[in-house]
C-alpha cells in the first residue's frame, strides 16, 4: 500500500509541479482541439455577437485553472522557511568550496539602473555556521562480505575497520562517513578509498595491491544517518562586500537583510546552511507578482494567448473551417514537425556538438566552433577501433541465425506432431527484455555453479570455459543474441514457407522432384523478401546492441565495448559530450552504409 502511495506522490509531483511550459503546450492543444470539435454545435447556439460574452467565462475558467496549478507550487512566506527554499528558481546558492558569495538583489542602482551584484568573502561566514553530522560511525559491529564471498570488511563503532581476506591476512584502518561519502583510510600506507552515496559498490584494494575485492554496500549505507539540521548563525553577523559598499546581515532566526550602499535601500530574505551550501531565498521575490509566478509567468501569457486564439477561432469560424476543409493535410504538420525536429534537426545538432568546443569532462553545453579535434582523437584511439571491430563481430550472428532459422523452419514444415507447441516456445526468448536476458544469462555463464556448468555436469561433461574472459566475452554475447533471435527468424521463415502455394509443390512432387531440390529451387527463391527483412532487423539489433551488453557485462568493460556502449561510457562516465557525439556520428554513418543499401536492395527485388 505504501508503495502505491509513494508512486502516487511521485506521479503527482512529476505531473503537476513546475512543468509550466510543457503542460501549457498540452493544454493549449487540448483547448484548441475542443474548440474545433465543438465549434459546430456552438455555432448553432450562438450568434456572432455573443462570442465576446463567451470569452468571459473562458477567461474565468482559465484563471481558475491557473490558480489551481499555481497553488501546487505556492508556499506562503511564513511557512517558507529556508528548508524548502531550494525549490525556488531565484535563489542564490554558494557552496563550501567556493570563495566568494555572490548576491544579486532586486534593488536597482539609481545611477546605473542595474541590479546590485555584490560579492562577499565566503570563508568569513563559514566559521559561524556548522552542520551537525551525526553518526559518522556505525552503531554496532557490521560486516559486509565481498561479491565472491571470500573476504569480509568489518566496521566497528569506534571508527576502525578490519579487512580480512579469506586466507587469514588482515588489514586495519579508519573509516568515516561524512558529506554523504564513505572514506576508508588504510593504516598500512594511508591510502584512501572513497565511495559516494550514489554508488552501490565499494572496491577495496589492500596496501600491497594483492587483494582487490568488491563489496555491495547498499545495506551498509542505511547504517549511517546524517541528520542535517538547518543551521543559522548563533548571533547576528554582518558581512561587508568586497568593494565595501553594501552589507549583508545574517540573523539567528534564519532571516537576512541586504543593505545597498546608497539611500539605505534594503532587501530581506531567508537563508539556510545545509549540505555544505548556503542558500539565500529572496523574500522580495515573494511579494512581486511576476516573481511569484516564477517560471509560471509563462502561464499568464499563455492564458492570454489561448483566449486570443479562441476568440479568433470563433470570429473566423467559417474561414477556418473552409481552410481546413480545403487543406485537411494541415494536421499532418504535427507529427511531421515532431519527426523533423526530434530526429533530423537532432541529428544535425548532434553533428554540431561533435565539432563544437564543448569542453571535455564538462556538463555545461557550449556550441562554439571547435574543429574536428574530436574526430582526430577518435580515429587515433585504439579503444575506438576495438569497439568498431566488436560491433562488426556482432554481424556474425546474421548468417548463424539465418541458417539455424532456415533449418528449424524446414524441420517444422515436415508436419511433425507437436510443431505448434515448439513454434510457440522458440519464440519466447524474443519476447524477453534485453535486461532480463542479460541477468538470466549472467547466471548461465556464472563460472562456479552457473546453470551451464551444472547442466553439462548432469550430462557428464566438465565445462571449463571462462565465458566472461576478455577473449570470450564477445562470443558469449553473440551466443546470447543467437539464443534470442534465431527462434524468431525460424518462425518468420516458417510463415514464408507456408506462404508458397501448396499446389506448385504438389505439382513438382508429381513430376518426381526430389524434396531438397524443391526447397532449393522453389521455396528459397520465394523467401527472399522474408530473408531481406530478417537481415535488416538482425543488422539493426547488432548495430544498436546496447541494452544487452549493458546488462550482461557492463558498460565499463573495454573488451565488450561496442560503439553504442563506448558512446554511453564517454557520455556518462567521463562527461565527454563532444567525443560521444563524434562516436555516435560514426555509428550513424555505419548504419547508413550497412543498412540503407540492404533496404534498397530488398525493396527493388520486391518490385
Amino acid at each position, binding site marked *: 500500500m505504501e508503495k502505491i502511495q509513494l508512486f502516487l506522490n511521485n506521479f503527482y509531483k512529476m505531473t503537476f509541479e513546475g512543468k509550466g511550459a510543457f503542460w501549457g503546450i498540452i493544454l493549449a492543444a487540448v483547448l484548441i482541439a475542443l474548440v474545433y470539435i465543438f465549434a459546430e454545435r456552438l455555432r448553432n447556439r450562438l450568434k456572432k455577437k455573443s462570442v465576446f460574452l463567451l470569452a468571459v467565462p473562458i477567461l474565468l475558467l482559465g484563471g481558475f485553472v491557473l490558480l489551481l496549478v499555481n497553488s501546487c507550487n505556492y508556499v506562503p512566506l511564513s511557512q517558507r522557511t529556508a528548508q524548502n527554499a531550494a525549490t525556488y528558481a531565484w535563489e542564490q546558492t554558494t557552496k563550501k568550496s567556493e570563495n566568494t558569495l555572490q548576491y544579486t538583489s532586486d534593488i536597482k542602482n539609481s545611477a546605473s539602473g542595474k541590479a546590485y551584484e555584490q560579492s562577499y568573502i565566503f570563508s568569513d561566514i563559514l566559521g559561524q555556521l556548522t552542520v551537525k553530522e551525526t553518526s559518522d560511525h556505525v552503531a554496532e559491529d557490521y560486516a559486509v562480505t565481498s561479491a565472491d564471498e571470500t573476504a569480509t570488511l568489518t566496521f566497528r563503532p569506534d571508527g576502525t575497520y578490519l579487512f580480512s581476506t579469506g586466507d587469514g591476512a588482515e588489514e586495519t584502518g579508519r573509516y568515516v562517513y561524512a558529506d554523504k561519502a564513505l572514506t576508508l583510510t588504510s593504516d598500512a600506507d594511508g591510502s584512501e578509498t572513497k565511495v559516494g552515496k550514489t554508488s552501490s559498490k565499494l572496491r577495496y584494494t589492500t596496501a600491497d595491491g594483492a587483494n582487490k575485492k568488491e563489496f555491495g554496500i547498499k545495506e551498509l549505507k542505511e547504517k549511517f544517518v546524517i541528520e542535517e539540521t538547518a543551521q543559522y548563525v548563533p548571533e547576528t553577523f554582518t558581512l561587508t562586500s568586497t568593494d565595501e559598499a553594501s552589507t549583508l546581515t545574517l540573523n539567528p532566526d534564519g532571516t537576512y537583510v541586504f543593505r545597498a550602499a546608497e539611500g539605505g535601500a534594503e532587501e530581506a530574505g531567508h537563508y539556510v546552511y545545509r549540505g555544505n551550501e548556503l542558500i539565500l531565498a529572496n523574500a522580495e521575490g515573494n511579494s512581486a507578482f511576476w516573481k511569484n509566478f516564477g517560471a509560471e509567468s509563462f502561464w499568464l501569457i499563455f492564458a492570454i494567448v489561448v483566449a486570443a486564439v479562441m476568440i479568433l477561432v470563433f470570429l473566423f469560424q467559417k474561414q477556418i473551417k473552409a481552410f481546413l476543409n480545403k487543406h485537411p493535410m494541415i494536421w499532418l504538420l504535427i507529427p511531421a514537425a515532431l519527426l523533423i525536429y526530434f530526429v533530423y534537426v537532432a541529428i544535425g545538432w548532434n553533428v554540431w556538438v561533435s565539432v563544437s568546443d564543448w569542453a571535455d569532462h564538462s556538463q555545461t553545453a557550449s556550441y562554439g566552433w571547435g574543429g574536428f579535434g574530436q574526430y582526430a582523437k577518435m580515429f587515433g584511439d585504439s579503444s575506438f577501433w576495438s569497439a568498431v571491430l566488436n560491433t562488426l563481430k556482432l554481424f556474425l550472428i546474421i548468417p548463424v541465425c539465418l541458417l539455424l532459422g532456415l533449418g528449424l523452419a524446414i524441420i517444422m514444415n515436415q508436419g511433425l506432431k507437436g510443431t505448434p507447441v515448439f513454434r510457440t516456445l522458440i519464440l519466447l*526468448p524474443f519476447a524477453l527484455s534485453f535486461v532480463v536476458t542479460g541477468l*538470466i544469462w549472467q547466471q548461465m555463464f556464472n563460472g562456479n555453479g552457473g546453470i551451464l556448468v551444472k547442466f553439462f555436469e548432469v550430462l557428464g561433461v566438465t565445462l571449463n570455459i571462462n565465458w566472461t574472459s576478455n577473449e570470450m566475452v564477445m562470443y558469449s554475447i553473440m551466443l546470447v543474441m543467437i539464443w534470442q533471435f534465431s527462434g524468431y527468424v525460424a518462425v518468420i521463415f516458417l510463415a514464408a514457407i507456408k506462404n508458397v502455394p501448396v499446389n506448385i509443390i504438389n505439382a513438382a512432387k508429381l513430376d*518426381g522432384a526430389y524434396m531438397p531440390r524443391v526447397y532449393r529451387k522453389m521455396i528459397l527463391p520465394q523467401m527472399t523478401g522474408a530473408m531481406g527483412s530478417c537481415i535488416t532487423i538482425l543488422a539493426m539489433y547488432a548495430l544498436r546492441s546496447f541494452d544487452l551488453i549493458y546488462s550482461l557485462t557492463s558498460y565499463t568493460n573495454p573488451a565488450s565495448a561496442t560503439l553504442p556502449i563506448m558512446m554511453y561510457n564517454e557520455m556518462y562516465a567521463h562527461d565527454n559530450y563532444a567525443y560521444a557525439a563524434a562516436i555516435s556520428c560514426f555509428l550513424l554513418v555505419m548504419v547508413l552504409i550497412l543498412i540503407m543499401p540492404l533496404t534498397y536492395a530488398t525493396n527493388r527485388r520486391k518490385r
Partner: protein
Amino acid sequence: MQNDMMIERSKAGQAAQTVRVKPKWHMTVLHVVYYVILVLFLVFYMLPFWGALVSSLKSNTEAISTSPIALPQQLSMEGYSGAMDLLAVSLLNSLVVTIFGAAGSVFLGSICAYALGKWRFKLNNVFFILLVAATYLPFQAILIPLLNNITSYGLYDNIWGIVLAHSIFGMPMCTTMMRGYYAEVPDALIRQAMIDGNGMWQIYRRIVVPNTKLATITTFVFQCTSIWNEMLFALVLANQGDSAQAPLATIVLNSFVGSTGVEINQLMAGSMILALPMLIIYVFMGKYLISGQMSGAVTAS
C-alpha cells in the same frame, strides 16, 4: 545425359509417391532424427527459462547451496515477495510509461499511416522516406540533443519525459505497421464515404478506425512490448541511484546486480515478474505481432 536425368527423376518421383502411401523405414528414422534435433533445440531455448524459474521459486539459502537447475525441495515465494517489494514503484512507473507512450505513438502513427496510405499530397514521398529512414535511426545519434531538449522542458527524471520520447520515436515503426493494415481497407469504401459528403478526417474517424480495430490493438500491443522492454531512454532520461523519481522497472532490475541487499532468488524472481506479461502476450499474440512487424518491415524495406 538428358535421358538419364529424366529416368532418375522419375525414379525419385516413384519413391516419393511410395513414401506417401506406405512410410519406409528410413523415413521413420528421419522423423526420429528430426525429433531429436527439435528436442535438443528446445533444451537450448528453454534452459535459461528453466534455471530462472527454478531459482526464483527457491528460498534464499537453498538457491545459493543447491544446483541452479535442480527442482526446489520446498517451494518458496520469498524471492517474489522480496522482488515485488523492491520493484513495486518502478513497475507502476513502467506501466504508465508503457500505456501512454504506446498510445501516443499509435495515435501519431495512425494519422501518418492513414494520410500516407490512402491519400496523396505535396511531398508525400519525401515524408514517407523521412519516416521510414527514422525507423533505422540508432538512438545514440540523437541522445545528446534529446537529453538537452527534455531537460529544457523540465522533464528530466520525469515519466512524462520518457513518454514523450517514446511517443515520438515509436511513431515511425507504428506508421509502417499501420500503413500495411490500412492498405487492406478497400478504396471503394472510402470513395463511397466521400460521395456521402464526408471529409478526409471524418472518413478516418467513421470508417477507417472502426474497421481496423484489431490492427490498432496489434500495433498498440507491439509498441507496449517494445516500450516495456526498452532500456536506453529509461537509463538516460531519468536520474540513477537512490534519489531517482522516475525509475523504470528495467533499470531498477538491472541495478539489483551487485547490491548485497538483493539475493539470487529475488533477482530471478524480478526477472520473471518483468518477463511474465511479455511471455503471456507472445504466447497468445506472437503470430499477429510478428506478422505485423513483418508487414511493417516489408513496406519499409
